[in-house]
């Protein structure tokens, strides 16, 4: 919303400066987005008086002028035809920037004669397009600032333009008068009275207006007056100037009047060329399929239920949004029908959105114009047209009733103080509301018709608070809800997320935050991509589906890094995957991806390609950090994006999967544009059981002084026997005595023959009663061999 200072002063009697007004507007909730002050650009131009003007000896069209300026008598060469002795002119002294020619004036020689400045035309100062000659001022003192002179004699030329942002709740501030009212309530001046002297009717028009019964709910009131014999043409200069100042193009007087009232009083109007209207006017809902060429020269096809204004020929205007081209006013219009109506905001919003029309009228009607002002607004426009363009005015033609929006809410002064936390006396509160147009009846505040946003007591609080100024609000400490040291506030799940992140980072992974949506192909590769998780209006096909888990996003990120030349990486993310499209169909995940080598090749020879045992170790470390039990099962049979033989599920029972680790399927990697192999892990932190006891106390440490003994065993087993089976069997041989069983060697094939392998384990025996004797060790060794043989079919290697 733009307006000029002088336009504002048309409604507000004030001496406040532009800065004071701008600060107040921002504080009131009408945020100033910009101020354009033409006086600033012209600040250096001063007034001079031409003493003499002689023809340039070497140029017919140039004159050598002697000019009195702020710097004393000055010689200036000028090419303007009107440059002559005895005129008062505007001088750009050397050093002055002249906006219209984008040049800073210097001292120069023109055809051999020195010139100390420039006498300017209006166009050179961007005041108008006038360039027939230099400005001749009717008055002005030598040396006087030109902008000061303009402010006194032609204030519109130095009129600051203020642009403010209007929040959706303030349609009233979409008119200059509404802005003025807010400023007056703040105490920055007095709101001038708004009166109109309606033009007396001189005839009764034949034109009739009707509103269909099924349309009255959305088009409750329509009125207009016919003016015969107007003389349309360009608008008067002041009107053109004001429209231009706010960025509107003057079209013709009749059209300009409607635009001006749209901005001045937030009262959109429409003018029909009455000679192009056939028969009567009818407001109704479209059947659907009707077409109409609007004033923007575009043809629109109406949808069923949309509001239209028709004559006997069919639709002529999209009600409240845009008029039709056929019945629009032109310079030749002599008989005009001026329309003022009230349209339902929701209906306008739906139609405007459906037809994709953004007009000033739609913008205002969908936010809500003042319904009660509908007939009065018409009278303002008719008065202006009649005064300027003449014509005979008909009786009021109307249909329907101005809707009753009267309502009142209780002003609870104490509640206002309690909510805002500012001591605003009751009298001030009442005064504020009155200044904004509320009528107070006891404690009941009757809402003015131009404030559709005020719908309850809370809105009264807001009005009082913003006029009182929230800038002045002083902070007051908010006491702790309970005294003393604050209690922990994170849930166990939240703690787990933090711990998981910091553990993964400590393991050398870089945390990523990738988009929650991925492309359909990537989603499908990882078990998602169905319609339930699809977006209706994705921003691009790369972001069409909610991610089923974190791997597609991480792999896409990895591919981008590979493309940048980074081949070794460890990435992780903690976030939600989506298994459905309903609220809550999301689950927390922790995923890490390892690609390339453990590090760059190095002098110590420690760098090697990453493999699934890296992923497994990292998954176990993160699981341990978030409190998962150490005793788990490793099962196979995870989803298809894992390498079928090279992955494992870390489980507490077949249905309780805490994590999956392993190599990713080569085909999936290929489709995700990953070069080389990749290993990964995924953890479901919410599957990890919560600790049973809440105590921080640890069990006492049981450390015996008796010496532990380690013994190694190697077994030859079938190649598909899993090491964990062997380890568990060995450990089960004597649960009291065996403290630990570790695999330290795996050897496949060779002299063992095909399908066989050797697994070597170290068993640590920790006695608790007495030092082990050789016989004890032999006894437990025999049991170990026995158990392992039974469990795996293996034999002790000789």
């Amino acid at each position, binding site marked *: 919303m733009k307006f000029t200072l002088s336009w504002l002063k048309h409604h507000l009697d004030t001496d406040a400066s532009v800065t004071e007004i701008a600060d107040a507007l921002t504080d009131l909730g009408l945020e100033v987005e910009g101020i354009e002050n033409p006086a600033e650009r012209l600040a250096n131009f001063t007034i001079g008086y031409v003493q003499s003007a002689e023809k340039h000896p070497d140029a017919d069209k140039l004159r050598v002028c002697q000019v009195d300026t702020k710097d004393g008598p000055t010689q200036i060469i000028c090419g303007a035809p009107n440059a002559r002795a005895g005129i008062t002119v505007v001088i750009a002294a050397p050093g002055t920037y002249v906006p219209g020619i984008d040049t800073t004036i210097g001292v120069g020689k023109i055809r051999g004669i020195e010139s100390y400045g420039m006498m300017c035309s209006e166009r050179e100062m961007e005041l108008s397009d006038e360039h027939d000659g230099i400005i001749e001022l009717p008055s002005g003192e030598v040396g006087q600032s030109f902008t000061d002179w303009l402010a006194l004699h032609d204030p519109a030329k130095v009129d600051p333009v203020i642009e403010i942002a209007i929040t959706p709740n303030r349609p009233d501030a979409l008119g200059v008068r509404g802005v003025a009212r807010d400023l007056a309530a703040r105490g920055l001046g007095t709101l001038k009275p708004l009166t109109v002297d309606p033009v007396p009717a001189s005839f009764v028009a034949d034109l009739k207006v009707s509103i269909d019964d099924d349309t009255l709910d959305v088009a409750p009131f329509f009125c207009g007056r016919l003016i015969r014999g107007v003389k349309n043409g360009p608008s008067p200069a002041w009107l053109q100037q004001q429209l231009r100042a706010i960025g509107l193009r003057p079209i013709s007087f009749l059209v300009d009047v409607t635009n001006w009232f749209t901005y001045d009083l937030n009262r959109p109007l429409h003018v029909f060329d009455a000679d192009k209207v056939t028969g009567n006017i009818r407001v109704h809902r479209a059947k659907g399929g009707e077409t109409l060429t609007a004033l923007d020269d575009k043809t629109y096809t109406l949808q069923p239920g949309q509001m239209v204004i028709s004559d006997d020929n069919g639709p002529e205007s999209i009600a409240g949004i845009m008029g039709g081209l056929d019945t629009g006013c032109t310079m030749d219009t002599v008989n005009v029908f001026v329309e003022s109506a009230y349209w339902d905001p929701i209906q306008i919003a739906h139609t405007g959105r459906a037809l994709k029309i953004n007009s000033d009228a739609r913008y205002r009607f969908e936010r809500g114009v003042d319904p009660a002002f509908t007939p009065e607004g018409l009278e303002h426009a008719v008065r202006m047209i009649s005064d300027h363009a003449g014509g005979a005015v008909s009786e009021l033609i109307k249909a329907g009733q101005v809707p009753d929006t009267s309502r009142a809410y209780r002003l609870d002064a104490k509640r206002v103080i309690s909510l805002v936390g500012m001591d605003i006396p009751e009298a001030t509160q009442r005064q504020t509301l009155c200044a904004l147009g509320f009528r107070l009846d006891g404690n009941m505040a009757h809402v003015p018709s131009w404030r559709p946003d005020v719908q309850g007591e809370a809105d009264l609080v807001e009005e009082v608070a913003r006029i009182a100024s929230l800038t002045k609000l002083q902070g007051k400490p908010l006491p702790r809800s309970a005294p003393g040291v604050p209690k922990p506030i994170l849930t166990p799940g939240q703690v787990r997320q933090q711990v998981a992140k910091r553990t993964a980072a400590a393991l050398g992974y870089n945390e990523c935050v990738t988009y929650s949506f991925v492309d359909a192909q990537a989603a499908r590769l990882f078990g998602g991509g169905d319609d339930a998780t699809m977006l209706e209006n994705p921003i691009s096909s790369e972001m069409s589906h909610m991610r089923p888990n974190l791997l597609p996003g991480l792999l896409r990120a990895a591919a981008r890094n590979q493309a940048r030349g980074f081949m070794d990486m460890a990435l992780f993310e903690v976030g939600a995957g989506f298994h459905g499209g309903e609220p809550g169909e999301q689950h927390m995940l922790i995923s890490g991806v390892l690609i390339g080598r453990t590090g760059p090749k190095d002098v110590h020879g*420690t760098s090697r390609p990453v493999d699934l045992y890296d992923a497994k170790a990292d998954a176990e470390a993160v699981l341990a950090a978030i409190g998962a039990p150490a005793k788990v099962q490793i099962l196979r049979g995870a989803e298809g994006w894992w390498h079928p033989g090279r992955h494992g599920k870390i489980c507490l029972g077949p249905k309780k999967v805490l994590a999956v680790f392993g190599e990713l399927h080569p085909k999936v990697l290929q489709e995700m544009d990953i070069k080389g192999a990749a290993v990964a892990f995924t953890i479901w932190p919410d599957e990890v059981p919560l600790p049973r006891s809440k105590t921080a106390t640890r069990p006492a440490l049981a450390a015996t002084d008796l010496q532990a003994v380690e013994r190694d065993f190697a077994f030859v087993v079938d190649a598909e026997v899993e090491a964990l089976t062997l380890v568990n069997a060995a450990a089960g041989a004597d649960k009291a005595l065996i403290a630990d069983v570790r695999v330290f060697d795996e050897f496949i094939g060779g002299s063992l023959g095909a399908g066989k392998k050797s697994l070597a384990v170290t068993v640590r025996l920790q006695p608790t009663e007495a030092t082990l004797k050789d016989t004890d060790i032999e006894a437990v060794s025999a049991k170990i061999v026995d158990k392992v043989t039974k469990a795996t079919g293996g034999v002790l290697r000789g």
Partner: protein
Amino acid sequence: MDELRSKYLNMIADAADEASIEDLRVQSLGKKGEISMKMRELGKMSPEERQVAGPALNALKDEINSALAAKKAALADAALDARLRTEWLDVSLPGRARRRGTIHPISQVTEEVTAIFADMGFAVAEGPQIESDWYNFDALNIPGHHPARAEMDTFYTHRAPGDDRPPHVLRTHTSPVQIRSMETTGAPTRIICPGRVYRADYDQTHTPMFHQVEGLAIDKDISMANLKWVLEEFVKAYFEVDHVDIRFRASHFPFTEPSAEVDIRCSWEGGTLKVGEGDDWLEILGSGMVHPKVLQAAGVDPTQWQGFAFGMGIDRIAMLKYGIPDLRAFFDSDLRWLRHYGFAALDVPTLHGGLSR
């Protein structure tokens, strides 16, 4: 006796290796050693003679023993020195490489914000990212026709043919979490709701996904003045400055009334943000007193309870504090960016240790 002493001490001093030391020991103090033989002769002496020769011999024996041990240790030291002289490594070679992981600024800043608000008694609430339009809009006093709905560039989820419910949305703010939380816990309550939010917009300063943290405090007598204090305290703590001016400007949000945009005083001298000084104002958040209709929608009686809510962008305050220029890079996972703007695993922000290092 003196002769014997000097003879052996000289020989020990001249010994070249451990073997000659052992030879000398046998030769002097061995069973048949010279000094041992002399000791045996003591028995044949008269008591007077013995009284003189005995202690002298014993002293000699001790002295030779010590000399042998000292020489042995000196030889071992010399041998070790000689070995160590050959054991030279190029210490300028790099140590064994270790990967250095990082925490994303979003996680770090979320923890910072959490630490500050936890101290003021705010818990952390979370909720679904796919929301019903009731929780995302209606419950927050944004009815179907409200212009704010269109202005929010909402993402909608697909509806199967025949499913006539209004489409779900990707939450456009974390406010629905406030509703869900109040439904569960009622009043009084103090929570912050950090998390991902979505709006269909993409340019240098907008990404279709970003992060918000909203706060909510409901009690019997919480006022907008309390809100201002909480935000002042937050801004000071977060930006780690002693003083900051914050400015409330009247504004409008459907879910609060009165509403205020909040600016902080800052300077942009030399292109870097300094909070708490200068003449510029930086808009960092929106806030207000919770609208009675919102309380009602969440099952809290607005005649009994009142309070404030606020919301700000986590990504945005991360950019401001840590000088990160481009929002889009947050979600690109460029390793160079992650390493440059990321935080060390053990840089856990705390109030007692400081939020940043």
